């Protein structure tokens, strides 16, 4: 078994969150963390005004790293301190978007960074009870976090009267049990309340208003909460200088699939193009292969085809917007650029596919995932995700009919936008984009003529006893 991959940072990386990941001699215990400046930012934060901390986060322009990219400061701004109900903070550590593998390393190797980020956030938002919702498949990470919480409590960074400020905070780890839908924040809240993880409808159930136990609740991703620590450390304005306007900070790209050196890379947001990520960071494709497609932001993001041209608007020399046509390798890896080419930065999971990959097989794999993970609450998603999976399954098995690509697309079109949560979009975007962009591959596999609509013995005439049924010949 190869030892867990330990790799020194690539020269083009800028490591902030991952500064201590894979570092020689770095251990997850609190002594090692405090030796490296740990909990110093918390000491600074508790002397600050609570509003000032929230304002720093607003000024930083930090966007959520879980998938939706919602501005963290805006989310925090919905919370009014001192209301009649308590406020809760939940860390979303249900990392389960296929293609994403960043939070795992933070929790395994640097758990105190997350805890410090959470204590600072709780202090700023006046939270006295917080949870880390970790997916059930991370039993080791859950143990490490529990150990880290116990250490932090012993040293006075958690519990009653933190650092002598009179601020109390209890923090617990809550383990999920294998359901992808728990990554959706309202589904996560239901699950934490001890129910099936059925997402809630918004409005009225915006977590910031009616969240956990019907109280105001903030749900942030692991990486986002770690960024808070660094924002308070360096100041929001200074943090905002990293990256690009509206796409600030660093983010961890997780690259997997057909590249020479897959792995995680923390880079300034938008500092690299797709080509640089694939060729520089990951050492390019395997010998003799050519690029076919890339899923840029977790499996739900729409696929990008390698030979496609993308029309974008870019700032010209005089600040005016100019139309430009670029290839896949020139797409900048940030929130806005990926949205402009019709996909999304999502959770930062980049899946690279070369010319050996059958796109029908790829889509079928993803469809099987979504069919398995649909929570079953809304009919379009529960039924549609299964239909899509059955159709791609049939095409792969050689039974695809000419109409299948259109049927697939129409099923997908009838899920997106018609469900309670974003899972509807997440499961239909792959099908929509694969079928549109690789239509020829689907058409080549789905060639059979349509069978007669119903077997002859079931046409209405027979059912009502008349003997006029024309003899139909069945397909095969």
């Amino acid at each position, binding site marked *: *078994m*190869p030892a*867990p*991959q330990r790799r020194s940072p690539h020269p083009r990386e800028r490591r902030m969150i991952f500064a201590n990941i894979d570092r020689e001699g770095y251990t997850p215990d609190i002594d090692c963390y405090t030796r490296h400046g740990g909990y110093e930012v918390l000491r600074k934060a508790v002397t600050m005004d609570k509003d000032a901390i929230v304002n720093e986060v607003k000024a930083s322009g930090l966007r959520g790293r879980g998938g939706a990219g919602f501005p963290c400061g805006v989310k925090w701004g919905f919370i009014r301190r001192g209301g009649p109900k308590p406020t809760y903070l939940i860390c979303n550590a249900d*990392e*389960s*978007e*296929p*293609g*994403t*593998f960043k*939070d*795992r390393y933070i929790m395994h190797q640097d758990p105190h960074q997350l805890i410090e980020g959470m204590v600072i956030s709780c202090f700023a938002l006046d939270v006295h*009870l917080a949870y880390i919702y970790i*997916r*059930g*498949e*991370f*039993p*080791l990470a859950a143990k490490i976090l529990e150990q880290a919480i116990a250490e932090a409590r012993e040293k006075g960074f958690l519990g009653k009267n933190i650092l002598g400020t009179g601020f109390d905070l*209890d923090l*617990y780890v*809550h*383990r*999920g*049990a*294998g*359901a*992808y839908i728990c990554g959706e924040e309202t589904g996560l809240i239901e*699950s*934490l*309340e*001890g*129910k*099936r*993880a059925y997402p809630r409808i918004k409005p009225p159930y915006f977590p910031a208003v009616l969240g956990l*136990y019907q109280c105001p609740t903030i749900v942030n991703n692991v990486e986002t909460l770690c960024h808070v620590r660094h924002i308070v450390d360096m100041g929001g304005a200074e943090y905002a200088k990293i990256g690009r306007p509206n796409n600030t900070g660093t983010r961890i790209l*997780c*690259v*997997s*699939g*057909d590249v020479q050196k*897959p*792995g*995680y890379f923390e880079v300034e947001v938008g500092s690299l193009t797709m080509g640089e990520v694939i060729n520089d960071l990951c050492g390019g494709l395997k010998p003799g292969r050519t690029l076919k497609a890339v899923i840029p932001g977790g*499996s739900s993001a729409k696929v990008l085809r390698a030979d496609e041209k993308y029309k974008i608007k870019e700032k010209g020399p005089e600040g005016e917007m100019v139309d430009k046509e670029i290839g896949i390798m020139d797409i900048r890896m940030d929130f806005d650029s990926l949205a402009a080419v019709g996909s999304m930065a999502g959770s930062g*999971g980049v*899946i690279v*596919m070369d010319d050996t*990959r059958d796109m029908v097989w*790829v889509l079928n*794999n*993803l469809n*099987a*995932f979504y069919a*398995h*993970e649909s*929570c079953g609450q809304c009919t379009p998603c529960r039924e549609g995700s299964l239909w899509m999976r059955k159709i791609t399954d049939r095409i792969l098995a050689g039974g695809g009919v000419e109409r299948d690509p259109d049927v697939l697309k129409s099923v997908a079109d009838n899920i997106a936008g018609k469900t309670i949560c974003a899972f509807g979009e997440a499961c239909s975007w792959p099908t929509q984009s694969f079928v549109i962009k690789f239509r020829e591959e689907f058409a080549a596999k789905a060639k059979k003529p349509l069978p007669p609509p119903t077997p002859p013995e079931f046409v209405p005439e027979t059912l009502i006893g008349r003997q006029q049924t024309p003899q139909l010949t069945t397909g095969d």
Partner: protein
Amino acid sequence: MQIPTELLAKVDEAISHYPVSLRSASLPLLHLFQEHFGYISEESILWIAEKLELQPIHVLELVTFYPMFRRKPAGKHHIRVCRTLSCAMAGSFELKEKFCKEAKIACHGEDHDHGDPVSVGENGEYSIEFVECIASCGSAPVCMINDDFYEGVTQEEVAELLAKYR
């Protein structure tokens, strides 16, 4: 139902993590019971429901919803192989077959059997399950044996890996 004192202590500790609502402790309790008994029995559901002042259906509906809970025992050592895209591209389907062959488990076929995804081998030594993405796509294919995690697993390593769990 006889609950050992050790488990009972863990149950009370778990419940103390949820000062606002008893019901929130249902997932942690199910985890504790599955760890201890290997699966979730009818009696366990009734016991948990009574402890948390819930109707048994409120516990049963969790067991049927969350994929990690099972209502039948798995093998002594439970293997989970990732099925999702990056791992599948790196050969996790073949890896699962190899595990089945080496551990003498009759597989349910290459796909999930949604009603009962766990296949148990002869004499209950090993069991195997195809699971969705376990978040380590960069070191695909990956698998878990019990709570231990293995990445970049090759076909050749399977026998040696299984030998560690006897």
